[in-house]
């Protein structure tokens, strides 16, 4: 069976949920093989095995971690040359897409970004993408080289299937040309204690309607075990950090449930959340465009409704 390379998304060995999802997709297409770049394989091994990696290629060298993107592209290109995979799956996200884009040029391979589904059709790999804020689905395939596909988080449900996880350390040669954009400092983002925004099953976001008070949003999110997001208006006002912004110039989320509180539903905000499975809004303006998208909406003041709902949910949990 052909190898399907999956670039592992991890923070010092803590494997992110998207990797489990990509390994699950890879299993449909061939033999899932994880590519682990950087330090921390000892913490990652079990997760990769649990989600079905048959092989694990470990590429650990400071040359790969101390510079932006380019060295990882060289490493993957070398691995593609030696393993001849049928497909390369990479998590969507700023860096994933950049790696994929450069790899496509370097290996003369077709690139599909932000796929929401990947399957084997008659003529090979077929992908689905959701575009224009979710109003169209594009079905496409790759006509040249080795398909390189970036996949959006939450596109599939990860399935635990034990893999052999045969480990192989791979030596890569990184050229000087790839070592030009130096990472001189790295400050890991402080954890909020909540699920990570892009991988959370539930996201509760607040907008200008919070008037700067995110407490009801956070408390409601916590009652649901959700991540907290924000509109650009809330971020620009300094009410919530930029790394939590949902939308075209922020994060793209696709959770099971998205709750928009005090958010009008501008096209740029929709671009980041419209593929959510279930959408709920609380907004005091019954004409707000967000209500065009919702499965359930409440017209009213979020400062009254969210705390009352939080209390009821917490009471149910006993």
């Amino acid at each position, binding site marked *: 069976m052909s190898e399907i390379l999956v670039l592992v998304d991890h923070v010092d060995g803590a494997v992110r949920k998207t990797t489990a999802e990509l390994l699950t997709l890879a299993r449909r297409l061939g033999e899932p093989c994880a590519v682990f770049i950087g330090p921390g394989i000892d913490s990652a091994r079990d997760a990769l095995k649990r989600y079905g990696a048959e092989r694990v290629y470990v590429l650990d060298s400071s040359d790969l971690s101390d510079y*932006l993107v*380019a060295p990882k592209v060289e490493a993957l290109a070398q691995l593609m040359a030696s393993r001849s995979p049928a497909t390369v799956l990479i998590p969507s996200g*700023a860096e994933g*897409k*950049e*790696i*994929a*884009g*450069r790899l*496509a*040029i*370097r290996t*003369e391979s*077709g*690139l599909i*970004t932000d796929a929401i589904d990947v399957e084997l059709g008659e003529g090979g790999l077929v992908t689905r993408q*959701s575009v224009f804020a979710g*109003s*169209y*689905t*594009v079905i*496409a*395939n*790759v*006509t040249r080289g080795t398909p390189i596909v970036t996949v959006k988080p939450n596109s599939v449900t990860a399935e635990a299937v034990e893999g052999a996880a045969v480990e192989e350390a791979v030596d890569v040669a990184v050229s000087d*040309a790839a070592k*030009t*954009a*130096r*990472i*001189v400092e790295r400050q*890991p983002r402080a954890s909020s204690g909540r699920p990570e925004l892009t991988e959370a099953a539930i996201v509760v976001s607040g907008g200008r309607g919070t008037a700067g008070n995110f407490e009801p949003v956070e408390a409601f999110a916590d*009652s649901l075990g959700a991540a907290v997001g924000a509109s650009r208006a809330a971020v620009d006002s300094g009410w919530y950090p*930029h*790394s939590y912004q949902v939308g*075209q*110039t922020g994060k793209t989320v696709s959770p*099971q*449930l998205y709750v928009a509180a005090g958010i009008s539903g501008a096209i740029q905000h929709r*671009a980041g959340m419209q593929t959510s499975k*279930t*959408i*709920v809004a*609380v907004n005091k303006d*019954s004409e707000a465009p967000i*209500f065009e998208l*919702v*499965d*359930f*909406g*409440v*017209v*009213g*003041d979020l400062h*009254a*409704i*969210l705390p*009352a709902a939080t209390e009821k949910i917490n009471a*149910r*949990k006993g």
Partner: protein
Amino acid sequence: MKVAVCVKYVPDATAQRTFSSDGTVDRGAVDGLLSELDEYAVEEALKMRDSSDAEVVVVTMGPEAARTAILKSLQMGADAGVHVLDDAIHGSDAVGTSLVLAKALERLEPDVVLCGMASTDGSMSVVPAMLAERMGLPQVTFASEVTVDGTTVRVRRDGDTATETIEANMPLLLSVTDQANEPRYPSFKGIMAAKKKPVETLTLADLGVGVDEVGADAAWTKVIAVEGRPPRSAGTVVTNDGGTGAEQLVGFLAGERFV
């Protein structure tokens, strides 16, 4: 110093966007404009000129109407424009786009190539990385803060899991986010001056790019079908009359098994 800025002409995002029968974005159906996210790239270039005498040239690839994007950049203060205009370009993907832009940029021999973080239409966000790959330039992308010190550029990049400081030397490729600066509005003087600024129009032949290297047929991917998503079935919207909103909300969430 020379700064080349890649600017894209895009359909207005607030208008209804559609696909043509050939599966490409229908750019005739709605008015277009300079991609708002590329205004940040133009602004960053103008800041470099303000502090170090740089020459700022904007480069666009697109249909006749893409001239609008160049004009707006010139009105903001850019010095000159290059418009790659060729019927064969229609339908190009990021691979084709980056090929053409790389050729157009190489002619300019810039010290800095500046891009926006994404185009507001296609939004693959990969053209800048592809340009760096093709041109062999250091890639310094998604900069939310830029500092120039001689020929060294240092930026803040807010990644998914960490904030990084990246440093590279010119010549390099830089892309900026909407956090990087506050784009200036064209002044009346700027609008008048723009009319006299040089804009060079180039064809693929001028760039030595074959017509078979671009366009939908040369793309390394193929759109098999485009499906309009059925409009979401209208949801239930309730009012908070008598303060029952929270109860109904929790009822809905419980019914959907979220609580």
